[in-house]
């Protein structure tokens, strides 16, 4: 089957199909009640329905940890990989099958600690996929160990005298990498914003990095409690090329217009986000659709078996004696 026949087939099939939320549901999630993962899962399913993505053409790849279970609860294809390595798997899927919709789901330790090398390079490859960093500032599944984003001084099982180092800022790290093309931050407890951010991330062509702040009801509830209760602890970054949710500005009065094409200013805003005294910024920090996209650069011709055999015979002749 060649590419043309293939897409024709798909078009004719898709005309008759429309997808409901139920098409994206898998076995019931068993995360703790109150876990932010539930909220992100629901938002993802709504996104898939909104965009009417065929479940069989959608792949969620994950690493290890609470977030690693994410694909199991979806009705799409999924690959629950190993700790820190969701991005290489997702890159492989997208390179091999650029027509598939690829999502990578990671936790904060997954992405920014054991998988940090892949994270940096995935940003630079800028392969067309959406990457979620589900950031609850702790290793939850393995019972409260310090993660790279745990605030300094916070007591954990591995650093019971308080976490030794200042938390890593995933936004500045991402914005510092050459060829970054989409960087956003949202929070699971603001579902409309979460939804709108995932939509913007999916529609961007390139590596869309979304840091999703989320509560771990067991271990880090206290870290987020102020921001959840007090809308003054949130500042919305708004722009027509970023995220703007009708009505949200009535609740969250701190609103800052920010043009996501301004990388320098995005870096400054992200840097300030490390300051616990300042409100948490939600929105698209940076977006540049003109960056080189790896899976597009690496598009290769489709060759039939006969063509390959013919080329190979010519190549072998070059080695003939």
């Amino acid at each position, binding site marked *: 089957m060649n590419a043309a026949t293939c897409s024709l087939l798909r078009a004719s099939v898709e005309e008759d199909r429309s997808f409901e939320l139920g098409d994206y549901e898998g076995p019931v999630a068993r995360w703790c009640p109150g876990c932010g993962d539930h909220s992100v899962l629901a938002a993802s399913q709504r996104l898939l329905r909104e965009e009417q993505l065929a479940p*069989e053409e959608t792949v969620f790849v994950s690493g290890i940890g609470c977030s690693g279970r994410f694909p199991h609860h979806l009705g799409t294809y999924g690959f629950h990989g190993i700790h820190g*390595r969701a991005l290489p798997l997702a890159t*492989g899927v997208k*390179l091999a*099958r650029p027509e598939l919709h690829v999502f990578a789901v990671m936790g904060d330790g997954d992405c920014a600690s054991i998988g940090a*090398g892949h994270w940096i390079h995935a940003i630079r490859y800028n392969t067309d996929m959406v990457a979620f960093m589900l950031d609850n500032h702790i290793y939850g599944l393995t019972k409260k160990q310090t993660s790279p984003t745990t605030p300094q001084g916070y007591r954990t099982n591995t650093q019971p005298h308080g976490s030794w180092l200042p938390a890593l800022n995933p936004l500045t790290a991402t914005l510092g990498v050459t060829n970054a093309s989409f960087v956003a931050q949202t929070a699971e407890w603001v579902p409309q914003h979460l939804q709108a951010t995932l939509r913007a991330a999916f529609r961007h062509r390139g590596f869309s990095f979304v840091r999703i702040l989320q509560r771990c009801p067991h271990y880090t509830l206290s870290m987020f409690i102020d921001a959840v209760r007090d809308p003054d602890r949130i500042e919305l970054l708004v722009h027509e090329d970023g995220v703007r949710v009708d009505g949200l500005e009535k609740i969250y009065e701190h609103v800052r217009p920010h043009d996501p094409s301004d990388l320098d200013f995005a870096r400054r805003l992200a840097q300030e986000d490390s300051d616990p005294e300042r409100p948490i910024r939600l929105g698209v920090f940076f977006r540049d659709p003109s960056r080189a996209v790896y899976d597009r650069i690496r598009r290769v011709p489709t060759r039939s078996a006969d063509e390959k055999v013919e080329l*190979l015979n010519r190549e072998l002749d070059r*080695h*003939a004696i």
Partner: protein
Amino acid sequence: MTTPTKSRGRRAGATVAERDARPAGARRIERLDQHIVEIVSDSGEGAQTCGKLFGTVSARMGNGVWTVEIIPAEIEPPARSPAGASGNRIRLGSREVTNWGDYTDLVVAFNEQVLLARHRARALAPGATVLLEDMWEEHDDPDIRAAWAAAMEELSEAGYRIIPVPMEEECLEVVDDPRKGKNMFALGMLASLYGRDRELLEKAIARRFARKDDELTRRNVALLHRGMRWAESSLDFGFEIPPTPDETAKVVMNGNQAIALGAIAAGFETASMYPITPASSVSHYLGEIFQDYGGILHQAEDEIAAAGVAIGASYAGRPALTITSGPGMALKTEFLGLAIMTETPLVVVDVQRGGPSTGLPTRVEQSDLLAAIFGQPGDAPHVVIAPATIEECFHVMVMARRIAETFRAVVIVLSDANLATGVQPFRRPVPVRAWQGSPPDQSPVPEGTRPYEWDPETGLSRRMIPGQAGGQYTATGLAHDEDSHVAYDPEVNQRSSRARSRKLAVLRSTLTPPPIHGDPSGDLLLVGWGSTKGAIEEAVDRARAEGLSVSSTHLTFLSPLPPGLGEIFGRFGRVLTIEIDYSDEPDDPFIDEENRRRGQLAWLLRAATLVDVGCWTRVMAEPLRPGSILEVIRSRLAVTGGAA
């Protein structure tokens, strides 16, 4: 034309070369079955090009050829230093040459320091003939003169026949900078000594420099002629290695090129890697041509990601491989476990080098065997196969893909630095359409089909590929049931482990016992695997010619092992593995039968067959020599009284 003088010969320590005395036209031509010749220079002086052309033309004339590169350890070693020795070592034979042979018989050296390097590496046969550039002897720089004198002193005890050659002086007649051209003069000398076809040489030179300018070709041909004329008039000896006429179409390449072409012939579409010696040249070649075939060579950020990208591509339905060497295998280990657990087809090429750790990056060793088979934590059954020749490097890729997909399995292909850098002509493969396989199945999955519907008998199950409607499932490295749902149920774990393991037994049921080289029974059986095949079989042939009762067998499948081994071993008085890895000698201090660390293949075979399999192993950072193996055969058979 300058003729070397007597005095020059004496000062160089020549033992035989009294060329002025030779009567015109009375050249003594020695007829031989095989000969080993090498050409060695500072890197950048073109000895490798000379060696390659010599090898190619010899192969075209119908001689068996095995070429090995002599590679300096550094990119830009200082000139005239033993560390900088660079070149080619070519074994010529009347018939097919299956290995690099024993010791070098004739050397062309561009300076005495690179010659020293080869001497110190014990590469040269006693009494080897050396054609040595003599410009250094009376060089203006006193340090160089002193270095020459010291080298001659060190070399004098070895008894080489050193013949000084005024290469610089001769080349200056044709070019201004003999550094660019001495190699063609040397090629001319070798052409004369070995009676190489002049027209074929000229054609090979024209082809080699075709991308540059005609002037360069013309100059190089002039240098070739000058080298030929000099040797004809100045050397009173020559060699004839009669070729065996053979009409079969042949190609010539090294093992890494063969793996690259084999991968394309096998229909692989994604290859991912991270640079590592001695595997990288597979990807150099793929990087050049793979995309013309619709393939993607992905250079990942590290060895781990290289495995991950290949697994992701394969999960998505495209045949994928990753290419590495020992240290990279260590890093990929966790991902291999994932591919085995999720039953994602994956081919991993490990071009072995010396280890452990960074070890000897450019040198051959077979020490990854047990790590390749057993190196993954948890029970992780998978396939390990090894090509034994450069030709097999090509064909093994086709087999590896087929096994990986049929059995939803990980297949590790163990090559090594000997195959990677050895260059040999072999029967031209005839690629067939069927090897390319089909595009990923995108047909809807029948309702009720489960992603791991393990057949209770064979453990096999049908794979579903993204794009197939109704097949949606989540592959997971966690223990899982037939639906790929995470399962901590003890029964499920026992059942799924059995299914993954059973696949190896099913694969084994399709294999035949390995063929025996020599008689089917006798006093001694040698067992090898991988690149040592040619050397072992040549040693067996030589020993059998002496009347010794020895045979050999060579294993392509290391996991699963082929059937029939116990029965074969039972037909021989003793069984001995020959391996390039480390083992304790039985009479070493502190060593006894129980604590002796054996060759890795011996360990494996003892465990599998309960036969008292012995081993002879070396880690000398080089391929095994047939002569060394012959010594082992003689000594083992003498001990048991089996020697003639």
